[in-house]
């Protein structure tokens, strides 16, 4: 499976995301000869425990995420970020969770947009929208390099491409920049060979950052 970096837009202090930034980012991809190649969509759901009134909520995980990815529509991924756990399941696991009624999905987000081909790279630019309200909550990008599936071996070329991309974007006066956070995949029990479980962990990590950014804007 090709290596992928998942990036999220970090607004400058006092700024938020808006659709103009998204448009500029897309135009920038096209300006470096990215060729449009269709659309993509991933979803992320927050699972919250259904607990009895007298129970201590701290007993249960607060960062239980469910993720579906476009590469494998028949699969679903659970991440417990705090406990460094990632699980791959058939998508029927969502039906099982509904039937158990012990956890319910409270907030669901769509990551959706356009994908581009650029030589051996595939780029995806996407908006993050709440399914309930359709409001823009963030911007993400996926940077995939097809020839390599080893995380370590890909580091140099991914880093170089990321620098090229940042430089191209910096020519536009945008109030923020893309950030790449590299989770410690080993802590999640994942090997150096890239899989969709690695992608799920990256999305879970990004959520934490996006929540932190939103809170700091509110503060």
């Amino acid at each position, binding site marked *: 499976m090709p290596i992928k970096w998942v990036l999220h837009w970090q607004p400058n202090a006092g700024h938020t995301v808006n659709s103009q930034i998204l448009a500029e980012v897309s135009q920038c991809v096209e300006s470096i000869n990215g060729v449009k190649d269709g659309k993509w969509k991933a979803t992320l759901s927050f699972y919250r*425990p*259904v*607990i*009895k009134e*007298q*129970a*201590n909520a701290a*007993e*249960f*995980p607060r960062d*239980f995420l469910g993720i579906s990815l476009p590469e494998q529509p028949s699969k679903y991924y*659970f991440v*417990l970020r705090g*406990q460094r*756990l*990632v*699980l*791959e*399941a*058939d*998508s*029927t*696991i969502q*039906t*099982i969770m509904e*039937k*158990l*009624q*012990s*956890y319910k999905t409270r907030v669901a987000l769509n990551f959706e947009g356009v994908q581009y081909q650029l030589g051996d790279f595939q780029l995806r630019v996407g908006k993050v929208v709440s399914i309930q309200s359709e409001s823009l909550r963030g911007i993400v990008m996926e940077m995939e390099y097809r020839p390599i599936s080893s995380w370590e071996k890909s580091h140099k070329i991914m880093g170089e491409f990321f620098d090229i991309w940042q430089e191209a974007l910096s020519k536009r006066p945008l109030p923020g920049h893309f950030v790449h956070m590299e989770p410690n995949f080993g802590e999640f*029990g994942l090997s150096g060979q890239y899989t969709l*479980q690695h992608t799920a962990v990256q999305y879970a990590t990004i959520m934490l950052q996006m929540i932190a950014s939103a809170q700091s804007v509110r503060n």
Partner: protein
Amino acid sequence: MECVVQGIIETQHVEALEILLQGLCGVRKENIKVHELCLKSGPNLGSEASEVRLLCNLEQPEPTWTVRHVGGSMRGAGADQISVLVRTMVESKVSKNVLRLFYLLGYKLDHELLRVGFAFHFYRGAQITITVVSVGKMLKLHATDDSVPVTPGIQVVEVTAPASAENYNEVATAVSSFCEYLAPLLHLSKPGVTTGVVPTAAAAAASLMSFSGGNNNM
């Protein structure tokens, strides 16, 4: 959704049952060794208690895991007229850290069993699976190498077939028809309806064993 019937057979007659099934199904048997962990929600989780089963297939060199949720069964006059149980059932293959996930979500181990035996998967009016297993309990936590039979000398037979709201009647009929072939050896009925062993089992088994010994064609 699935249609289900169950029965029991004395271990001494299992070989005869296997011969009969080999002839009826026309497929090779699949060996079964499954570690089943039944988890229940902790006291503070969920407005009602919930139960989920984790199945670890130990037959392959690398164990594989499945999560299974068995739901409520069909009730009412329509259900009473059907000789099989129709119930909801959902399964999902999962990666190996599923037990840790459910523990972290607040589920506790209620009991665990080891099922060892064989199964036949075939099509006869519906996609049918028949499993014949000895059910064992572990003497120590998760010690699958150290189990004792729950019912010594008795094995459990289960016939299941996936069904939908549109076709469960046809599937139920197919399962019932198939079960009639097994009647001399064992009686299959809805889970929870106890029937015991069949009085003709010994004679039927003897007949099958002698037939199998003298003739390779069925």
